[in-house]
């Protein structure tokens, strides 16, 4: 705890500051929880698990709870770019309103195209108003890639026909922190896959401010809410990894914490989907699991109320939280060593074997010719 005391005090004073500001909701979180039948005990359990998720020691639990209650003091603008809304779905599509979705409901959501009631001119006005009124204080979440070709004309949003690029640049200007939610916003995702005719890029490539990348297609609701909670608690960016992803979520590879890791080390592999190995829960490496090259906390946090995740369901990881995953991790049901290399449509092994064959033929020809060559004069 000693090592965390500075962080603890930072959080304390940050929350005290937030408490001074006016709430943006008329209903407190406490009332919302009661209304949805969530007990105080369940709320504190959730707070403890978020504390653990963020790799913080137990005494931070109270601060997490307090931060959740003060979430309605932090204005959030959520932009949709070139995307499928799967990341928002990951967060809101739950069978019962659980705490993660409630917090998202409670945080002062100023603009979110999927969830807001406003449309047309009114929606545009809301966005402009929020950007003006909370300049320098709002949290900006972006979902989806930014098309940049033809000056961004492949994506225009709203009645004023602004391009996505224009909107993101403007919104980023006054943001206190920027979160790229999902692989598209972080690295371009599927939209940026070869040949990328729209010139789609991640948010970090079109603006010049630090961006927190939440890779994943989609990222789990835990990683989204955890990042929001971190910002509410500390008002700054968490420790980030090589691709600016929070270390508490993307610090380990999927492979490191996989429940099938023992099968991998033992050399027990599923050969084809549906074989006896698959029924026995063998490792999915040979049917294309990209867990060894993917940093994420899916095996420990899972998805949909901690219900399941791809490998538990019987399919390998496709590496969706990594940059260029659509190109780099293909073919999704073959290991990387059997990947068809771009442009030649052959595996490295096929090309290598052909070169080796040509070499052997060349050597053979040279050896035979040597038999007939004139010997060297002494």
């Amino acid at each position, binding site marked *: 705890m000693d090592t965390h005391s500075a962080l603890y005090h930072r959080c304390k004073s940050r929350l005290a500051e937030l408490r001074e500001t006016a709430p943006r909701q008329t209903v407190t979180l406490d009332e919302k929880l009661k209304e949805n039948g969530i007990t105080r005990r369940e709320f504190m359990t959730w707070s403890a698990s978020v504390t653990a998720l963020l790799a913080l020691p137990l005494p931070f639990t109270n601060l997490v709870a307090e931060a959740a209650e003060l979430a309605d003091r932090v204005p959030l603008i959520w932009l949709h770019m070139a995307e499928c809304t799967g990341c928002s779905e990951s967060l809101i599509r739950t069978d019962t309103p659980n705490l993660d979705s409630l917090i998202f409901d409670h945080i002062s959501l100023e603009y979110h195209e999927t969830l807001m009631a406003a449309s047309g001119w009114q929606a545009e006005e809301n966005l402009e108003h929020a950007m003006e009124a909370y300049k320098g204080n709002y949290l900006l979440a972006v979902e989806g890639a930014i098309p940049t070709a033809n000056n961004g004309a492949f994506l225009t949003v709203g009645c004023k026909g602004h391009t996505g690029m224009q909107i993101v640049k403007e919104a980023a200007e006054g943001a206190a922190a920027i979160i790229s939610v999902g692989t598209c916003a972080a690295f371009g995702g599927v939209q940026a896959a070869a040949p990328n005719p729209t010139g789609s890029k991640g948010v970090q490539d079109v603006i010049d401010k630090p961006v927190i990348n939440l890779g994943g297609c989609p990222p789990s609701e835990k990683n989204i809410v955890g990042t929001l909670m971190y910002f509410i608690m500390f008002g700054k960016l968490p420790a980030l990894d090589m691709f600016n992803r929070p270390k508490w979520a993307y610090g380990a590879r999927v492979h490191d914490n996989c429940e099938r890791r023992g*099968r991998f*080390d*033992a050399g*027990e592999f599923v050969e084809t989907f549906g074989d006896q190995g698959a029924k026995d829960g*063998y490792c999915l490496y*040979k049917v294309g699991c990209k867990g060894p090259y993917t940093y994420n906390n899916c095996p420990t946090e899972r998805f949909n109320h901690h219900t399941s995740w791809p490998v538990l369901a019987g399919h390998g990881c496709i590496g969706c939280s990594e940059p260029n995953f659509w190109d780099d991790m293909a073919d999704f049901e073959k290991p*990387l060593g059997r990947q068809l290399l771009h442009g030649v449509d052959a595996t490295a*092994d096929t090309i290598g074997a052909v*070169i*080796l064959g040509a070499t052997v033929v060349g050597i053979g020809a040279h050896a035979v010719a040597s038999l007939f060559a004139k010997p060297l004069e002494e």
Partner: protein
Amino acid sequence: MTQVATHHRELIFSPAIRIFHWIRALSIVVLIATGFYISWPFLVAPESSDVLVQGWIRFAHVIFGFALTSVTIVRFYLFFFGRSSIERRSVKDVLSINSWITQIKSYIWMGHLNKAGVYGPLQFVTYVGISLAALFMCITGLVLYANVYHEGFGGLIWEISAWFTALMGGLAQVRIWHHIITWAFIVFMVIHVYMAVWSGIRFKHNSVDSIVSGYDYHKDH
């Protein structure tokens, strides 16, 4: 009756060079075999999951990987700072167009192979290429190692490994290039063995054995 020696011998490869050559050769062969298993685990599953087939093969890959890494570092040092200049002299040939023509002609049965150092220019450039490939394999290998073994040495090189991973565009890229470059070693090995045997026969000197004994033999005139 006294026998008169018809040849004199010359030490061309120091013991260090010979020992490192064979450690490297052994490492490369083992690394290729175990590497292909890691890429596509072709052995059948063991009777019990207590037998860590993948684990042991990866262990061998790591041990020989470290052997190759050490030799690669020492060999780079020896090339620049070794006492004998027999390898460094070849740089002169590389910079001379005539030496290139002489060597390539000698390979197509036209004339002798005259050179300043122990290697011809084409041979020298090939060795530099394969040494750089070895360096690349060692670096990417260490990056992959740091991702599997998080404590100790793996932990020590974690930060720089992460930096290198970002440079390559992700761990998948590190992994796939580690696989592709393997083929350079396979093709090189076949050509290397053939050329060693062939040039010994063609130019009537000690070629294959010199990397074992260290000596080359020249006829007295």
